[in-house]
């Protein structure tokens, strides 16, 4: 015999390990044991195999690697005796899981053991199969298990039933084989069999609609009777738990009745009586009884309506909620959350108690209660509830503040009745827990502030006060710095005073003080400081008298080690110093941020993808970042000012932006009609993009693009929603026109009615010709629709054909995707491409454009350029 092999017994090893004082000692002992076990494994030692495996399991439990023992399990399982098999199966279940390939090797042994004459060995095999079976094993061994459902001993039948649960979870299409055997098991008296059969039945119902129908028809009545017997049964010591006969069985019965009764009035009818009986008769002074009541309430809530029962259930929950036991209160909150959809009114009655639970000392209860409150809030109770929550914020635990603020903010955002209330509440939250709120929260607040034009003064003054008291909250500092930068003049002049405000006197220097304090605060992070610098730059123009002081503060950051800060301070310094004349225009107040876009963007946090450009020969104008993070307005701003060297930038930007939104909303709502939601978003965008006083801002620009070129945006839409267009061009176009009708000056008229214009050879060379066909929508004379047709005059096919055009500033051009990019030789086909031109000086100047056509002919890159100036003025 091997001298190393397993001289220590299991007990001695455990003792030795427990005697270890340090982790290192323990490792040494384990290493030694593992070494001797490995030696025994390689010697194929039979005598101590089961002892070695037992040791390995213990070592495994301590967290050491034991993969080398896996084969030992298989050998033990393959041994003939019961003791070996018992330990072998235990090892198998502990050391392996269903994903290990070794498991496949055990299938055969399992099959033999499932057919063994000894029922305990059959039991072991069923247990192992039930706990770790993989899909393949389930498939292979399902017939054996199915047969064992009719085994003579009930203890094997119940194991087989649970094993079947695992099998149908792994391979749902095997479910139908089990339906009939289960139906007969449900008629048995043995509690173990009944218990397991009910669970199997429940699982069958979830995987197969047919099984559900079958059981609903055949078994509902029987199960109701079983439950009735269980409820009324006399004292049975074997199953008694604190005075209740087999609560486990009752719970399982209630659960299966819930599944059978859900959505079926007849089945629900059958169980009404017994549910009422359970709800009234069950003692609620012990956990077991409460477990039954809890299950019963849930069943009542999900089966088909029966008013009387619901009242009973809600009363039980009310009793639970006022219970002193935390467990019971927890489940009551949990249950109320589900009840809210059934009977919101009844749940509202418990509002006060629920709000108290938010303040509980138990984190689990607090969390549940908070979620429930969140569901309870509506327009009528939002103010008192929010007040309650914000008051609690002051005293709540540090680690609860994050959750709490997130929920408060979400409530305030969702249900705020007016802007001033929103701003007030948010300021309060930020003051209390500004370090716990997420960035979106204060971003959102700024968006709301900019939109509340009449509250700018009020807000900036409130923030000025807030930062004096809560200057340690990062979010307060940021919002305050931003607002003082933007609206510093309103702060100093006390402009836009509301009645409820107390006047305050703030000098220009005071305002700069706040920013200076913020930038110097050692806890301020990079983005706060960067925001401070921008605010300073803005203030330098608003407060000319402080200009020198501001310059000094900005200069202090010139030596910053953070590149961002250093760069900003140097650039801003030179703006203040050298570009006095530019400065005031440069630091104008931010245009109003678009709320709809903001929330749309936030909802679908997907980056905006430019996949909607659809092969357009479109290049982004130079230097404009195409990042999704760049604010919408920046993009629009630039695109509006751009002299449009690359044609069509405005509309295409619009298209891109919309494209991004469409993608995100579509993926968010999971709808199968992306084009529909897309147009909704557009509608939102456009309709909310018309704020009242908007002179000269870039939002107005974008708006004017879409107003002037009503058709342009329609076409953008068309190309976006191309799946729709292909089928019903006309109807979809007019549908969208309808949508846009709200602001567009032009009525939606079918385009056939437009006057006809002669076609024109716009460009001709040796190798190709280009013909323009014109059409116009009546009522919008400045818009011209051009259909360009390209024909190949040479004898070679052209590939990678791309047409580009550029127009002067008074024109706006939108290019639609071309019909193709290959142009067959000698006029055997053509490419068409639609262009839309908007002439802002219609009637004064005629349309002109420069064109560039590139293609590959004989694999050689060709380029042709030209100018089109022969378009008649009336177009």
């Amino acid at each position, binding site marked *: 015999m091997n001298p190393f092999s397993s001289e220590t017994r299991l007990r001695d090893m455990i003792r030795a390990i427990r005697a270890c004082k340090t982790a290192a000692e323990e490792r040494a002992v384990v290493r030694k044991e593992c070494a001797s076990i490995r030696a025994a494994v390689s010697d194929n030692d039979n005598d101590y195999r089961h002892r070695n495996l037992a040791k390995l399991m213990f070592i495994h439990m301590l967290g050491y690697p034991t993969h080398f023992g896996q084969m030992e399990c298989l050998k033990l399982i393959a041994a003939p005796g019961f003791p070996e098999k018992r330990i072998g199966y235990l090892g198998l279940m*502990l050391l392996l899981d269903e994903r290990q390939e070794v498991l496949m090797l055990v299938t055969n042994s399992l099959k033999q053991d499932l057919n063994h004459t000894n029922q305990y060995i059959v039991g072991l095999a069923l247990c192992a199969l039930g706990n770790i079976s993989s899909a393949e094993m389930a498939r292979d061994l399902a017939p054996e298990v199915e047969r064992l459902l009719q085994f003579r001993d009930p203890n094997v039948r119940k194991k087989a039933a649970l*094993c079947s649960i*695992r099998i149908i979870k792994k391979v749902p299409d095997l479910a139908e084989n089990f339906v009939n055997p289960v139906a007969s098991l449900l008629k048995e008296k043995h509690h173990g069999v009944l218990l397991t059969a009910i669970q199997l039945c429940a699982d069958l119902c979830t995987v197969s609609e047919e099984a559900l129908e079958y059981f609903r028809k055949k078994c509902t009545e029987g199960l109701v009777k079983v439950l009735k017997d269980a409820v009324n049964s006399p004292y049975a010591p074997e199953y008694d738990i604190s005075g209740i006969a087999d609560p486990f069985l009752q719970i399982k019965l209630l659960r299966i009745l819930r599944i059978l009764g859900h959505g079926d009035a007849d089945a629900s009818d059958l169980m009404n009586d017994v549910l009422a009986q359970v709800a009234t008769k069950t003692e609620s002074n012990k956990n077991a009884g409460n477990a039954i009541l809890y299950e019963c309430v849930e069943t009542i809530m999900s089966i088909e309506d029966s008013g009387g029962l619901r009242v009973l259930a809600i009363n039980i929950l009310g009793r639970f909620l006022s219970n002193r036991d935390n*467990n019971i209160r927890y489940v009551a909150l949990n249950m109320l959350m589900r009840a809210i959809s059934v009977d919101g009114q009844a749940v509202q009655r418990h509002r006060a108690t629920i709000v108290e639970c938010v303040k509980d000392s138990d984190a689990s209860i607090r969390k549940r209660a908070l979620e429930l409150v969140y569901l309870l809030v509506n327009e009528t109770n939002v103010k008192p509830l929010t007040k309650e929550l914000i008051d609690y914020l002051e005293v709540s635990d540090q680690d609860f503040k994050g959750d709490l603020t997130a929920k408060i903010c979400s409530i305030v955002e969702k249900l705020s009745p007016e802007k001033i209330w929103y701003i007030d509440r948010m300021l309060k939250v930020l003051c209390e827990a500004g370090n716990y709120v997420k960035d979106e929260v204060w971003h959102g607040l700024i968006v709301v502030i900019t939109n509340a034009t009449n509250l700018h003064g009020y807000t900036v003054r409130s923030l000025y006060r807030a930062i004096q008291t809560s200057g340690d909250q990062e979010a307060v500092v940021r919002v305050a710095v931003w607002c003082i930068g933007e609206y510093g003049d309103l702060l100093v002049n006390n402009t836009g005073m509301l009645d409820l405000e107390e006047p305050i006197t703030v000098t220009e220097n005071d305002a700069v003080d706040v920013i200076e304090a913020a930038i110097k605060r050692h806890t301020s992070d990079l983005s706060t400081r960067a925001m401070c610098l921008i605010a300073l730059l803005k203030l330098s123009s608003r407060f000319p008298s402080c200009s020198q002081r501001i310059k000094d503060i900005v200069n202090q950051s010139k030596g910053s080690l953070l590149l961002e800060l250093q760069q900003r301070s140097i650039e801003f310094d030179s703006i203040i110093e050298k570009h006095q004349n530019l400065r005031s225009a440069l630091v104008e107040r931010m245009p109003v941020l678009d709320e709809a876009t903001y929330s749309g963007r936030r909802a679908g946090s997907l980056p905006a993808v430019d996949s909607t450009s659809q092969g357009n020969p479109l290049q982004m104008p130079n230097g404009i970042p195409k990042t999704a993070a760049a604010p919408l307005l920046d993009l629009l701003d630039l695109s509006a000012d751009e002299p449009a060297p690359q044609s069509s930038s405005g509309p295409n930007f619009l298209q891109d932006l919309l494209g991004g939104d469409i993608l995100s909303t579509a993926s968010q709502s999971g709808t199968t009609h992306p084009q529909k939601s897309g147009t909704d978003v557009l509608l939102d965008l456009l309709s909310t993009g018309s704020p009242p006083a908007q002179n000269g801002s870039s939002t107005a620009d974008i708006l004017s693009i879409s107003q002037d070129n009503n058709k342009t945006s329609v076409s953008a839409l068309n190309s976006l929603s191309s799946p729709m267009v292909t089928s019903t061009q006309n109807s979809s176009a007019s549908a969208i026109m309808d949508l846009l009708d709200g602001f567009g000056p032009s009525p939606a008229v079918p385009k056939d009615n437009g006057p006809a214009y002669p076609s024109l050879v716009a460009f001709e060379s040796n190798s190709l010709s280009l013909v323009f066909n014109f059409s116009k929508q009546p009522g919008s004379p400045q818009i011209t629709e051009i259909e360009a047709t390209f024909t190949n005059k040479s004898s070679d096919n052209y590939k990678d054909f791309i047409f580009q055009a550029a127009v002067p500033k008074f024109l706006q051009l939108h290019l639609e995707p071309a019909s193709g990019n290959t142009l067959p030789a000698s006029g055997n086909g053509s490419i068409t491409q639609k262009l839309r031109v908007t002439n802002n000086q219609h009637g004064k100047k005629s349309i002109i454009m420069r064109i560039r056509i590139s293609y590959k002919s004989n694999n050689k890159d060709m380029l042709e350029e030209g100018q089109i100036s022969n378009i008649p003025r009336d177009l």
Partner: protein
Amino acid sequence: IHFVLSISRQGKVRLTKWYSPYSQKERSKVIRELSGMILTRGPKLCNFVEWRGFKVVYKRYAGLYFCMCINQEDNELEILEIIQYFVETLNRYFGNVCELDLIFHFHKTYYILDEILIAGELQESSQNTVHRLIDAQDSLVEAAKEEENTVSYIIAQVAN
């Protein structure tokens, strides 16, 4: 039930049983996370913690915490009752069970658990039945041992 754990107050693992697949790495991570969460909770608080979208029901017996992980929609009170039932069964088997019993006879603990739960579902609601089955299997093992002893005894005698 996704898994059953038993952790001592010092954070030592005394029993683990996984009914849903978790890799070895995930297992130790789960144990670490949960013992951090559960062992720090005060005595009067409720027996449920929410964790990764699941619920963990735990109950403390002397220095030992028994935990079971369930889905959001399962009945927490029932699980509490199952834990109680398991512990009572252990108590009856070992006779006033203590942590040491579970350490030195960990395999027996597992055998008992296997008679109560399979595939994460309850299989028997009668303690008597569980005991009868465990006793029957134990005596099978004893019988096999005795037989082995006599045979090896004979062989040894012959060899001498």
